[in-house]
């Protein structure tokens, strides 16, 4: 069963600290430069508008394969990724556009990949499910649910042995947590104290399968007990909470204390993929989660905090929309790959 958000312990304890699911966590967010706080809002807008645009492409039949939209889950990707450093690695999922954008990918090149263009991140060969922007430390999306949990663990090994000081953020869904390899990978990470932040994006469904039917435990983060590692469940729609938690455990990982399992409660607003009649959930449920939209909540927080004015917030969104228009233009005007390239990069 999914624990209700309100039940999650979360209150400002003493100034500068928060209690998040039983963990005393410093309010790192408070100490951030205003520009970074604003940049995080912009990233969330970028993801939201990127996905809206992608949905338009889907409706117009411009996306050949399938796509899994991240709308509604933006705070998780942005909060967690901004809490780590540029040099750190991430691994992503089939629902990977948000992680990719947050880690710093160029949306023109991403959009080009979605349209199967030569100028895309994968030269048109990967599409939505395989975007990997290695320059920003993104080791790639994955078409196999849970496929990147092991890969993140291996990247953690590299960080521990060779690239000391670096850590890995591994995103995966609630559904992926029930793949057998989750166990093998987390166990390994735990016995070797690997610096990996495992972020389980619990969006209440794995395709049509409700979490409450797929698990016999109420918190996925309770799996931590099996591995003797740290773990907690947080509000994945609250950017500040995600940021602080991830930042806290980034330091923890960097200090060689081992991996952590953070469960972020969130919700996917759109259908699972390109074709999904959503018979397994009610309109009412979707609406209730849309009311917990992570973006206006965070924007209001910044405004109340005096970091941003209403007008600046609006302007930011306008800028994002313009950037997206540019990305669409770039993608649409880009050439398709030459059919002769089909056997390029085949080495065996």
């Amino acid at each position, binding site marked *: 069963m999914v624990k209700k958000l309100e039940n999650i312990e979360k209150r400002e304890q003493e100034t500068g600290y928060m209690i998040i699911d039983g963990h005393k966590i410093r309010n790192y967010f408070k100490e951030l430069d205003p520009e970074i706080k604003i940049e995080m809002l912009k990233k969330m807008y970028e993801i939201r508008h990127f996905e809206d645009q992608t949905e338009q492409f889907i409706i117009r039949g411009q*996306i*050949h*394969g*399938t796509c899994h939209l991240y709308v509604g889950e933006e705070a998780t990707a942005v909060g967690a990724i901004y809490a780590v450093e540029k040099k750190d690695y991430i691994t992503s999922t089939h629902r990977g556009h948000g992680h990719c954008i947050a880690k710093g990918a160029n949306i023109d090149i991403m959009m080009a*990949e979605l349209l*199967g*263009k030569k100028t895309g991140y*994968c030269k*048109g*060969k*990967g*599409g939505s*499910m*395989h975007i990997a922007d290695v320059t920003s430390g993104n080791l790639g999306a*994955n*078409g*196999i*649910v*849970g*496929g990147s949990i092991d890969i993140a663990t291996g990247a953690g090994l590299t960080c521990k042995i060779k690239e000391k000081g670096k850590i890995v953020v591994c995103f995966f869904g609630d*559904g*992926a947590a*029930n*793949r*057998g*390899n989750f166990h093998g990978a987390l166990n390994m990470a735990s016995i070797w104290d690997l610096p990996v932040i495992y972020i389980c994006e619990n969006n209440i469904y*794995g*395709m*049509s*399968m409700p979490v409450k*039917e*797929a*698990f016999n435990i109420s918190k996925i983060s309770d799996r931590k007990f099996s591995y003797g590692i740290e773990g907690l469940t947080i509000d994945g729609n609250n950017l500040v909470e995600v940021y602080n938690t991830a930042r806290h455990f980034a330091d923890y990982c960097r200090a060689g204390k081992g991996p952590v399992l953070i469960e972020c409660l969130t919700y996917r607003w759109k259908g699972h993929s390109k074709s999904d009649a959503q*018979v*397994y959930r009610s309109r009412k449920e979707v609406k209730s989660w849309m009311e917990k939209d992570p973006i206006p909540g965070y924007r209001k927080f910044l405004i109340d905090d005096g970091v941003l004015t209403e007008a600046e917030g609006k302007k930011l969104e306008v800028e994002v929309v313009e950037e997206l228009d540019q990305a669409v233009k770039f993608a649409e005007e880009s050439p*398709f*790959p030459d*059919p002769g*390239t*089909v*056997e390029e990069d*085949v080495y065996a």
Partner: protein
Amino acid sequence: MREIEYREAIREAVIEEMDRDPKVFLIGEDIGKYGGAFRAYKGLLEKYGPERVINTPISEAAIVGAGIGAAVTGYRPISELMFIDFTTLAMDQIVNQAAKIRYMTGDNLNVPLVIRTQGGAGRGVAAQHSQSLEAWFYHVPGLKVVMPATSYDVKGLLKTAVRDNNPVIFIEHKMIYLNKGPVPEEEYLIPFGVADIKREGSDVTIFAYSNMVFKSLEAAAELEKEGIGCEIFDPRTLVPLDEEALIKSVKKTGRLVIVSEACQRGSIASDICAKINQKAFDYLDAPVKIVAGLNTPIPYNSTLEQACIPHKENIIGAVKEILL
């Protein structure tokens, strides 16, 4: 005769078998309310309830393994793996367990299990959702491998698969679920190991299965205009294989073109070629030709994706070359 969609034929087969035998049940991901990724099980949860339409977490190995366990203890499960690409996650259960249990135990245990899955390219779902992996299962002693092309075949063969006392890998193709084809109202079964000549001809035999049957039929229709008669040989089941009928067809035409969406290296196509060279060499008027997919992962971009798999034109080209 009425015509129904391939996925509807699957659904009919499942309903008939579940009604006939209470030991038959379904297990897999998103087969409940969702009705299966390709909606072949639409309405079955409502009809049979959650005890016989078991929706699972994303645990492929356990979907197959639980099927095996139920099978050895008296049930006849149909385990579903949404994409053949995900059989990789259940390979221990399929290859080391299901395929070997009967033999290893000296026939003490049987595994009456059907593993339904689908493969193939064409939907833009790229390298991890478009593979043709049938050769892996074909290679392993102890697995039957079925790859039906038409609504008629899928229904009759699925019913036979459910009644078989041994593990059957039942592979559909993602591009043909909406194809309509004639299916009689009356019940029928199609035995394993019996090929179907999808079209008769006397100049060249074209061996093709699954979606490649349709590409071959298109090629044959065009070649007929030039006076070339193609015999389309659809084995329907790869294990067991109707070798006798294949040799008979090759005897008649003297020429064999093998069409395979899977790439050639280590493929079923190569094995068929070897078999014919070993067993029917004297009847051949020309070396066997193979038209196969490219040796590449399947790319996303539609043009590149199409470049990876055989088309009517490639088949026509091969037929013409072999007739030279």
